């Protein structure tokens, strides 16, 4: 239980997807213009990460890992399908994103309209694939750990995009040099936020 909680906290603050690994930058930069939109996208990412990581965990555990198929019959005990991880992980992610898209379109058409192309693009959001690959690489021990890692990473990404959206709303009327307006200043803010998030770097829990 303690370990699950630790993984959750660690993936939000210490191993933050955006500020520690700079993953998922494309939608982070593009959709962070207003807070409500970024909240919507952030929630979608939490949902997708929270589902894909545990599903991919099961897939990895029972199909892909070297010797994972031993539960079928002893003939498969030395089959190693891990070269398929990328393809299968992406397939799962894409189908989950499709699901999220349908749900959002049904229940919040306005959010669906404002997210636009970036909603289907969650499928190729590197933070999502990154979540599954980190899960595989760090060899989490149980489904619960993988789930808490997925949810935690999502919450970390959510915090990052909502934080920067609020800052971008605040600086909307600032006298930013013309050449830096838009993406340029967003990159600089991301860097400064990264410095601030370094406060948690090195905490071992």
């Amino acid at each position, binding site marked *: 239980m303690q370990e699950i909680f630790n993984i959750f906290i660690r993936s939000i603050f210490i191993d933050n997807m955006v500020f520690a690994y700079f993953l998922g930058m494309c939608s982070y930069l593009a959709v962070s213009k207003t807070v409500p939109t970024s909240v919507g996208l952030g929630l979608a990412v939490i949902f997708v990460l929270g589902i894909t990581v545990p599903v991919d965990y099961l897939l990895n555990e029972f199909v892909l890992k070297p010797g994972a198929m031993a539960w079928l019959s002893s003939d498969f005990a030395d089959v190693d399908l891990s070269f398929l991880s990328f393809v299968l992980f992406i397939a799962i992610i894409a189908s989950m994103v499709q699901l999220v898209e349908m749900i959002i379109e049904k229940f919040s058409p306005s959010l669906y309209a404002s997210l636009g192309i970036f909603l289907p693009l969650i499928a190729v959001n590197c933070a999502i694939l990154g979540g599954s690959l980190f899960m595989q690489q760090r060899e989490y021990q149980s489904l619960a750990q993988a789930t808490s890692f997925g949810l935690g990473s999502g919450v970390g990404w959510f915090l990052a995009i909502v*934080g920067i959206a*609020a800052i971008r709303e605040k*600086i909307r009327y600032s*006298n930013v040099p013309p050449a830096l307006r838009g993406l340029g200043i967003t990159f*600089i803010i991301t860097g400064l936020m990264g*410095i601030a998030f370094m*406060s948690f770097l*090195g905490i071992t829990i």
Partner: protein
Amino acid sequence: MKALRNLLDKQKPHFEKGGKFEKLHAAFDSVETLFYVPDKVTTKGSHFRDAIDMKRTMITVFIALIPALLFGMWNIGYQHFLSIGEQPDFWTMFFYGFFKMLPIIIVSYGVGLGLEILFAQIRNHEVNEGFFVSGLLIPMIVPPEIPLWQVGVAVAFAVIFGKEVFGGTGMNIVNPALTARAFLFFAYPTDISGDKVWIAEKLDSFSGATPLGNAMIGDFSNMPSAMDMFMGTIPGSVGETSTLMILIGAVILLLTGIANWRIMLTVFAGGYIMGLLFNLWGANAYMEVPAWQHLIMGGFAFGAVFMATDPVTGTQTTKGMYYYGFLIGMIAVLIRVFNPAYPEGMMLAILLLNVFAPLIDHYVIAGNIKRRLKRLKALTN
């Protein structure tokens, strides 16, 4: 004074449009406003008329910093002579520290104001008094022996990326002084942390660890007494050691209404409550440090009084200030106790909340709008 006014008036036409030094008008402007209040007044629209302006605000903060600065200078000398086992008189100690600090202050102001003037020139705005305080805060939070070029680089980074790219004074997201400190901390860690740096030219046999440095490695036997930590006769950066002097500054800031008491109070409250929680938990020796001691150790008081209360980078809404201050205090103590990488958490806690301050404001305002809409609905029905 009259001669100065005459001199300025005589030079002024050269710097105005069409004059021969037209390009340098920002530099001239900054010199003029340093000595005289500009005679330009707003004529159109409705305005609050008040004697307070940015210049007066900045000078008040400057004055509030003076006690801590003077004490810090003396303390540099005191720590130095203590470490080599001499006991000279008061003025020797003070001037030793004074001449250690002076180059740092000069570099900080030189680089900072130079860049400000440059930006004002290129971007065609006026030089603000904004750097007046940051330029003094930076020397007060670095070690006395820091190489001067590092101060220059850090100040340049802070002024350009912390402030000017956002459009100058009043637009920045993170506190420029803390940006400079964080830049130094992550770029040149060996020159700004550890036991060696906090006492100028000390003998190697003498331990120069700060109380927080000792606490981090779990050495609680060498802790100075609470009285020493309160008075400030301990190793540490210039501004932070003396809680007493910082409190004098705090009184000045609060009486003049420059700093917001809500932020100051909640930062201390947050730190204290977090300390109490750790006391209850008590899993290791660091967690058993009395909660009130956290408030006088290291840069906690300095950050709470001079950094967290920065009106630009903090939250703007009244309700937001309580959350903002409280979280700063809690996270600062949390980082101290939990993070083995950094002995001091105050700097990073304030930076972190600077980043999230707009978000807090956003939700406070959204809450207000919602409540008023509800009230309106109740009225119209």
